[in-house]
């Protein structure tokens, strides 16, 4: 049986996504597998405390290695590279790996065949056991690219395991923004949930996220966090949600207790009570009505 995949995103950072996701994980325990695809800055494991049982290396692209014995410093590779990822120096050609896109053009063009393209570890991912269920999570090494690919890999591992073991749901803690990592997190998922806040930026970012979900044909639901921040923005967001046909799951007022729980590395389930239970009930109703 194919699991239903719920991806929680925010557009704007700092809306309380991971705190809320952790509480949903607690409520979905035994029914769901969990997956943290915010691979640039993963946080869910801080609250779920996984016992990392299996670890894997991630390598998504190849970068050039120059054989200095064969290289005659002609500089054709430097001229070819459109990303300024190769630099000609006194004693040889150096590769600036953080600029390299891995196209392999330099290796093709080198008249001396001095360049080979090699894989390397860009990050790691783990399958961990938590008290609530299995958690797939990852970390991209600082400054790396290909986060979209690592996101896809994690989602697939989680889905595979959920399928095999009969979990009906996969809960995915998504990345911020709307570019490659988020596109990779949302494509083909069953439902996206945006955790937003009633502020000018919150609304602006929610609209862009909404456009992205629409272009990917993923239905969108909304949770309004720190709901008492601004009454006018609160009303504005709820109106927009209605007009765009986004499902409104519920609101949660700002609670300092949530920060306290997080600081103790605990899931803020009590602090989010009773609103989180209402949200959970509404979510189950909506997700059960989505046909796969």
């Amino acid at each position, binding site marked *: 049986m194919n699991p239903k995949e719920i991806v929680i995103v925010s*557009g704007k*950072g*700092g809306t309380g996504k991971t705190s809320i996701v952790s509480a949903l994980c607690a409520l979905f325990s035994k029914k769901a597998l969990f997956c943290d695809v915010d691979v*640039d800055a993963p946080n869910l494991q801080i609250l779920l405390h996984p016992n990392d049982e299996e670890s894997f290396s991630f390598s998504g692209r190849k970068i050039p290695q120059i054989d200095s014995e064969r290289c005659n410093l002609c500089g054709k590779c430097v001229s070819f590279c459109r990303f300024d990822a190769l630099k000609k120096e006194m004693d040889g050609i150096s590769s600036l790996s953080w600029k390299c896109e891995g196209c392999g053009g330099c290796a*093709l063009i080198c008249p001396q065949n001095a360049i080979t393209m090699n894989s390397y570890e860009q990050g790691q991912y783990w399958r961990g056991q938590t008290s609530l269920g299995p958690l797939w999570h990852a970390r991209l090494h*600082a400054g790396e690219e290909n986060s979209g690919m690592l996101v896809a890999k994690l989602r697939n591992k989680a889905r595979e395991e959920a399928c095999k073991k009969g979990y009906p749901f996969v809960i995915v803690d998504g990345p911020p923004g709307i570019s490659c990592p988020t596109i990779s997190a949302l494509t083909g998922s069953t439902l996206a949930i945006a955790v937003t806040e009633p502020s000018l930026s919150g609304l602006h970012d929610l609209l862009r996220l909404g456009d992205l979900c629409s272009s990917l044909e993923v239905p969108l639901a909304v949770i309004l966090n720190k709901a008492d*921040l601004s009454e006018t923005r609160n009303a504005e967001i709820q109106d927009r949600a209605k007009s765009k046909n986004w499902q409104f799951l519920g609101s949660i007022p*700002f609670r300092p207790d949530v920060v306290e729980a*997080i600081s103790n590395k605990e899931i803020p389930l009590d602090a989010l009570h009773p609103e989180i239970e209402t949200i959970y009930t509404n979510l189950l109703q909506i997700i059960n009505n989505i046909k796969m």
Partner: protein
Amino acid sequence: MFRLTVVSGKGGTGKTCVASSLAFAIRGGTVIDLDVDEPDLGLVLNIQNPESESIYKVVPQIDAKRCVGCGICADSCVFGALNQFGTNVPTVNMKLCHGCGVCEYVCPQKTIKDSQTQIGELNSKRTENWWFLEGRLDIGEPNPVPVIHAVLEKANSLPFPQIVDGPPGTACPMVAAIEQSHFVVLVTEPTPFGLSDLVLAAETVHELQIPAAVVINRSDLGNSKETEVFCNKINVPILARLPFSKEVAHAYAEGTAPFCVDRKWREATYTILDHVKEVLS
């Protein structure tokens, strides 16, 4: 005369709050929004009706008349951006294409040349106090880095000092934003999330060897001890510890920069600027 970039690793720590406050404290420079996925700085600075120009990335154009459908280009594309079947002329998947030029190079018939496709917008406005620049990624475009590069290229011809609101995360968009910067301000919060992401962001900044400082926002919500210990260990000064303020939060929700409503924020902003000038002189 410097370019200062505000980043955070973790989103939502107050990066745009700090950047907008810095903008209010300078006179006669340029203010830049490089959070091209979700550019919000313009909202807080109340920028109306900016001028807009398109940002493009290079993509290949194939001359269908000369193409013989050999498929060598598609076989050579590591990004899988060329769809070619049978002896048809290949089509380009614009989203996957990185504009590397390999297909152009390997085509035996030399039928491929450079063309371009829009990936975003560069919005600009000259106000009383400064130039404002914003990069905005088109929805559905996967790669923000070319947009960031295009905005910085324009910024190079505009007046200094320059304040940049950077992208969240610690991956290549953040690197693209800070590598052309003279100083980096890292905004964090005293929670385990904030610290975890600060560590990652600080690592990247350190590798690029750019001087940096930290601002702890909402400093009274959580436990800042570990953050203090970490900053001490890596020799990065903490320039301000700003407590949570409902007034600031409400004002920001309505689109007003903290600098405009809170004395502590004003003091912190000037402290940051003074420190940067001192370090860079």
